[in-house]
């Protein structure tokens, strides 16, 4: 399956060849959010939104065509 992935803020560095952290990504069927983060080698705690829905769990399954956004949890500034 293929997802539309967008890494936000400092996470863009995990996709150095992408256009501002945005790319299409192929995943094995039945991949979870945890699988995606593992593939990206993101070790820090992040928040993930799928198709605009926030507060997703690491065990949640992704499906073909999902729009996935990954955020850091920084809340100050």
């Amino acid at each position, binding site marked *: 399956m293929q997802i539309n992935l967008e890494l936000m803020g400092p996470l863009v560095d995990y996709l150095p060849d992408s256009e501002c952290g945005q790319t299409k990504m192929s995943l094995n069927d039945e991949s979870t959010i945890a699988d995606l983060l593992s593939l990206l080698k993101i070790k*820090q705690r992040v928040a993930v939104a799928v198709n605009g829905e926030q507060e997703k769990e690491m065990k949640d399954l992704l499906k073909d065509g999902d729009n996935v956004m990954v955020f850091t949890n920084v*809340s100050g500034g």
Partner: protein
Amino acid sequence: MPKGYTGKILHVNLTQGELIIEEPEEQFYRTYMGGSALGMHYVLKETSAGVDALSPENVLALCTGVVTGTPISGQSRLTAVAKSPLTGCIGDSQGGGFFPAQMKFSGFDAVIIKGKSPKPVFLWLHNGEAELRDAAHLWGLTTGDAEDKLKEELDDKRIEVLQIGPAGENLVNYAALISMSNRANGRTGMGAVMGSKNLKAVVVRGKQKPEIADPDTFKELQKWGTANLEATGMDGFGKYGTPSVTTPQDKVGGLPTYNFNSGTFDQAAEIDGVKLYKERLRGHERDEQNRFGRDTCFSCTVKCKRVTQIDEGPYKTEAKYGGPEYETIATFGSYCGVSEMDAIIRANALCNMYGMDTITCGATIAWAMECWAEGKLSAEDTGGIELVYGNAEAMVQMTEMIAKCEGFGKILAKGSRKAAEIIGRGTEEYLITCKGQEAPAHMPQVKRSLGIVYAVNPFGADHESSEHDGSYKAFPERMEYIGLTKPQEKLALNKEMMRFAMVTQHLFSAIDSLSVCSFIYGPAWQLYGADKLVEVVNAVTGWDVDIEELLEVGERRLNMLRAFNSREGIGRESDTLPKKMFKRPLEGGRSDGYALDEEEWERALEDYYRLCEWDVETGHPSLKKMESLGLGWVVAENEALSQVVS
């Protein structure tokens, strides 16, 4: 011999030119720790109810904490407290850089300033000695120029200078204290208080490094910070800085836009932090931003400060004035509908040159822009300047006019609440102030417990006085350490979220009393969690504090701030959010249609009061609470307070 602190507090009476050094007992430091709590001890002792914020009788306290100046990340912070000319409530503001550590090296933990000098002076602190010197030749200079002159005059490039700029001299109600020409104790108008005293600057230099009680543990804590930069994401935060939250805020509908009428800005990508890093930070042309475009505070490994430089054109900017934080990008950018990054960089530099708070300045201009859009202001009021949303040129021009108190800028220099009172015509409907202080760039409609803290915070809306809502669920291990084990769903405004608000508020209040950085120490995403904060305090001081003791210090400071307001007769009636947040649903993006429900919100406010043991009717701290925190003396010594606290 004290560990961590110098044991010396300088009292300055500018009217008489008198300098007295006090050496408090160790218990005093353990009770207040430093920063805001320590400063409030003196403000409550030495001012009377009804004091005019810009009079000689107001007391300005500049305080470091017991770990300031030790070589570990996030400790070089200074807190300023005094009655605020912007709000009429207590004022409180934190700032970082190298000044706080150098002030400790100069031999003083804090400086308590009262009176008014007959002529402009600066205070020179060096190796345990203090003197007042003439500053007539510095009056009127921008911060960069004044700092250059002082370095030349004192023949020492390593002095650190905390100063007011022309905005502080002009008593702009939200004038800031500036160090390094780009670090600000920005909020609540502490620069105007210093200006009203004819004190241009405090200049520090010394070699008295604080002693550390347990150097081995301290070294381990230093190493832990460096080793955990990647795991906590603080390496990326350091690289891209606070501006990197701009786009994420926009995506979740939490980027205040058009004076808080929307949570999404269709040009957010233009003002994002990654773009700022790639296309504007100094050195970007050679991909050398890490070397030339980032700056830091004393001994901090995170290095999150921005350096920008524009060599030509209308927004020409010198590197010494730094670069914008997220708050500045939002207030001058999305609040005003402005997407030109160079204009934001220039407005930021003007605030640092003249010494003004970027949040209140940008938000006040945004308020005027909404008034313009609603037909309440016209070119006749503004002297021909078209304050239309998106007009970058007008935004920058107005920023400079405010600093100089020129034309319409003179009215906006009072802040939006007072400007609305002067202008009338229903313009108060568009205010985004709490207690007269403009809201920072996090939205109560989206972060609802934060909204309660905006309302109850004694010095007005503030985004660094509690942890933000989403962190409760996102950081369960760290939350458990401070007794928060029941994370709630998004937008919840129930009793557990009020407990989250209060407990994290106490922790942030302790952080502001220790005077450490809330990006480095905190209950959630920060580099060091609250457990490590306890370890740092103990390693430096040799004390045996635990988290409960630190939270109590935070609660003590919060109640001192609150008691100051109670003494002024300010209570529950001031604990409100701007009307528009209840009446006007947000437009567009993920938060489209969001508005607060007044009944639910008031119920949450009362839950919060009960948790704090404050009177639900009046909002004043109870006598029992004050006494349990060792603050019975505050009530006993202040008749006006004893009449409202029971």
